[in-house]
């Protein structure tokens, strides 16, 4: 095992020696044990030992970054020199900096040590459970892994962190089959630090399997209507990701192309919407503890009760724009639950669509989206009826956030996010 604090100290010294005014080092060791299932059968067991050394330097306002996966003295020296050469190739920009000494902390969390026999048993059990409870499902690929990560961050301004964590990740990709008929594929993901519960009970795995089994027989939608889209966590997360990137992220604020650029402190969404970036929430497994720029991670609200409270900006773009820096860079999004049970929300929809997955063009800064509603169901007169195929949906991200019909009481926590089911209006649904 490498002494990462020694690696970090040697790296900062090498960067200084090479001429850096300010320097930063992140050293990381990752040990992965992973079981793979392909086409419904166990196929592979792999064990990976990887290292990562990421150096950044600022000299005369010019910044460079270099990363390698070696820790020996000669590699550190060469990487430091390369880093300064990369910096020299750039332009001076006063906005580049590293975090001041705001914290000096050490963290241990999750399940750092793998219990491989139990992990294999749980994986086998999941295969058995799926076979028994969802016999039409064919597992295209299942990846079950334990990751143990040791990392150290240090910069020349005095910020220093060390961390040890471990977690189990379960990724499924599957479809349902009956003779030559099949559903579209669907993916489920869960991150956990415990092997106490059967995997099929985690996240939305069981619900996802059941829904896909009901999507073998589909019909194309006849005609076109404007109605309600019911977004379960699987597609809600995709829409929120696009929305935050296009309205609150680094690029669009740096460009000045964000539609929200002048909306800080103003209402941008229905008052029932509260969106937090919260890596320290107990439902987030092994969430971020410090940012890549050296700041301690804190939870914050992007939108609170419909009001834009914060952009999601890096320190660099914060300095460029004069807008506040985001308090973490985790992507651990939590959307607060509503007060209606999902069954009541469905019962209240006269005509709409359940969108399990969205396959569409990446929405641009206008927020317009258009694409195929995959793994979808038609909702008519308060009931989920038939599964749909070749059905397009379109709308605008900013508009649907202001056109909320209901937010469910139920949420799905998959270890990386916590999301409810959201019903939004004003979505165009079009068949062939």
């Amino acid at each position, binding site marked *: 095992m490498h002494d990462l604090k020694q690696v970090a100290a040697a790296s900062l010294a090498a960067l200084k020696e090479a001429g850096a005014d300010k320097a930063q080092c992140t050293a990381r060791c990752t040990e992965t044990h992973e079981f793979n299932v392909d086409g419904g*059968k166990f196929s*592979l*067991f792999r064990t990976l030992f*990887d290292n990562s050394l990421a150096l950044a330097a600022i000299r005369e306002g010019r910044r460079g970054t270099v990363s*390698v996966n070696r820790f020996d003295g000669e590699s550190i020296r060469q990487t430091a020199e390369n880093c300064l050469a990369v910096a020299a190739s750039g*332009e001076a920009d006063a906005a580049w900096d590293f975090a001041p000494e705001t914290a000096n902390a050490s963290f241990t969390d999750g399940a750092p040590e793998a219990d491989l026999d139990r992990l294999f048993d749980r994986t*086998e059990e999941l295969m058995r459970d799926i076979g028994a409870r969802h016999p039409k499902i064919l597992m295209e690929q299942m990846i079950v892994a334990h990751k143990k990560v040791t990392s150290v961050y240090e910069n020349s301004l005095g910020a220093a962190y060390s961390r040890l964590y471990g977690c189990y990740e379960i990724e499924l990709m599957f479809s349902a089959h009956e003779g030559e008929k099949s559903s*579209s594929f669907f993916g489920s993901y869960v991150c956990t630090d415990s092997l106490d519960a059967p995997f099929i009970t985690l996240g939305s795995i069981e619900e996802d399997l059941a829904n896909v089994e009901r999507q073998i027989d589909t019909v194309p939608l006849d005609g076109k209507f404007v109605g309600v889209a019911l977004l379960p966590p699987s597609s809600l997360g995709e829409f929120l990701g696009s929305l935050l990137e296009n309205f609150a992220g680094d690029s669009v604020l740096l460009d000045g192309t964000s539609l929200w650029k002048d909306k800080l402190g103003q209402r941008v969404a229905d008052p029932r919407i509260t969106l937090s970036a919260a890596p320290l929430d107990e439902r987030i497994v092994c969430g971020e503890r410090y940012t890549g720029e050296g700041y301690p991670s804190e939870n914050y609200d992007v939108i609170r009760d419909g009001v834009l409270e914060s952009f999601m900006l890096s320190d660099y773009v914060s300095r460029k724009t004069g807008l506040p820096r985001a308090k973490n860079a985790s992507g651990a999004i939590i959307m607060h639950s509503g007060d209606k049970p999902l069954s009541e929300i469905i019962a209240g929809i006269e005509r709409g669509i359940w969108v399990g997955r969205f396959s*569409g063009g990446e929405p641009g800064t206008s927020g317009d989206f258009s694409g195929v509603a995959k793994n979808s169901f038609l909702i008519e007169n308060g009931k989920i009826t038939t599964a749909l195929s070749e059905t397009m949906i379109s709308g605008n991200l900013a508009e649907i956030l202001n056109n909320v019909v209901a937010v469910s009481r139920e949420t799905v926590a998959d270890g990386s996010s916590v999301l409810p089911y959201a019903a939004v209006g004003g979505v165009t649904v079009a068949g*062939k």
Partner: protein
Amino acid sequence: MLDDIITSAAKLLPSDAHAELRAQMNRSCRVTLRGGNLIGNAKNETSGVSARVYRRGVYGFSSMAECSADAVASVVRAADENARFMARRAPSPDKAPIAPIPASSIPAVAPFTDPEQKYYADFAKAIDAYIAEKYPSLASRTVVATSDSMEKILAVSDGAGGHTASPRSYMYVFLNGETTSGTPIELYTVFGGSGTYEKNFKDPASMYEEIDRLYEHLMQKREGIYPDAGEKTCILSGTLAGMLAHEAVGHTVEADLVLGGSVAAHCLGKRVASDKVSLVDFAHTAFGRPTPLPVVLDDEGTPATDAELIRDGILVGYMNSRETAAHFGMTPTGNARAWMFSDEPLIRMRNTAILPGTDKLADMIASVDDGYYLIDTNNGQADTTGEFMFGVTFGYEIRGGKLGRALLDTTISGVAFEMLKTVDMVSDTVKWDSSGFCGKKQPMPVGLGGPELRCRVMVGGK
């Protein structure tokens, strides 16, 4: 370049099982200028060794971030232990032995070097300065200079070994504007291909004409219209035909996805396209020239040859690993590739293209009374059912056989094996693209290409 610590260490591989041993180095550089701000200036290099062992129908794999004799011994031992664990706990003894490959050696590659980061940065700054000066009214602009490479030394217990390298390098130019009604619009273009950055980019001025064309298209798009939604007669550009070949057809005929339930499982030997459509996954040579990203040896020790997939509209083959080739009774063609030293080989496409026909693009446009010529795309997704969705970022309406107004962003969708049956004209010119990564557990550089196709396809409208 890598020192060869692999060939002599092949003796460490178990003698009673198929096994592979690989050393690999990946390098990349990326310089990003956004609105003149140098927001990214990074270099990356990773290297290490890995081994994979096959026992009773299951694999064990291990990797280590170190290129040394000790690391080689460790990964061979760990991979065999993992294979034995799986052979004990979850064997598939009914699987056929993996497909045999005669022993041989691929000639070593010529050494290559990356230019200094300054070369990338200076080139990107020159392009950015040209755009900033000539087109000051743009809402924003982004210039990216990038390269990546994989270098591998492979030894296998049975099959071909060798030393291969595949550098590629690109420049991306993004231009942003607004429509007359204030809607943000964007177009981008890519330059480059296989080879080092210095080889592909010598003179910034050689790119100006294409940048001017991109700006002209952006100005046309400012006045653009949304197409009418519904099934239309369209001409897909070579770029879109290539995406169709890769996303909507290629993935469904990767043998691991066939075993995972793709639509192609039931289509072998059947008609899946009109007789004007043929599709090949090329290895290293296509149409008498090197492919955009030549592959000569895969990571299971199979020398790369072309995989014929669709011949005159009939599905005739899959892309295989040695394991799936044995399952389907096919010949492996070198499709099992790994992205990094720590990745196991997966079935991947190399250079997948629809073959050219005999039609001229001008005749194809003239043949459409009411439809669209769809040219550029920014993304595409497809299902294992063959249902696809592609974003379309630029195109023209066609009215009475003539190009009309430019189009705003839209989407096209359909089911590949149904839509391909509507192809009734195929142009005589193939356009290749190779700058992207295919995503399937691991990223992988791939080439994709095709001629213009006339077909019926669902257009999303607004």
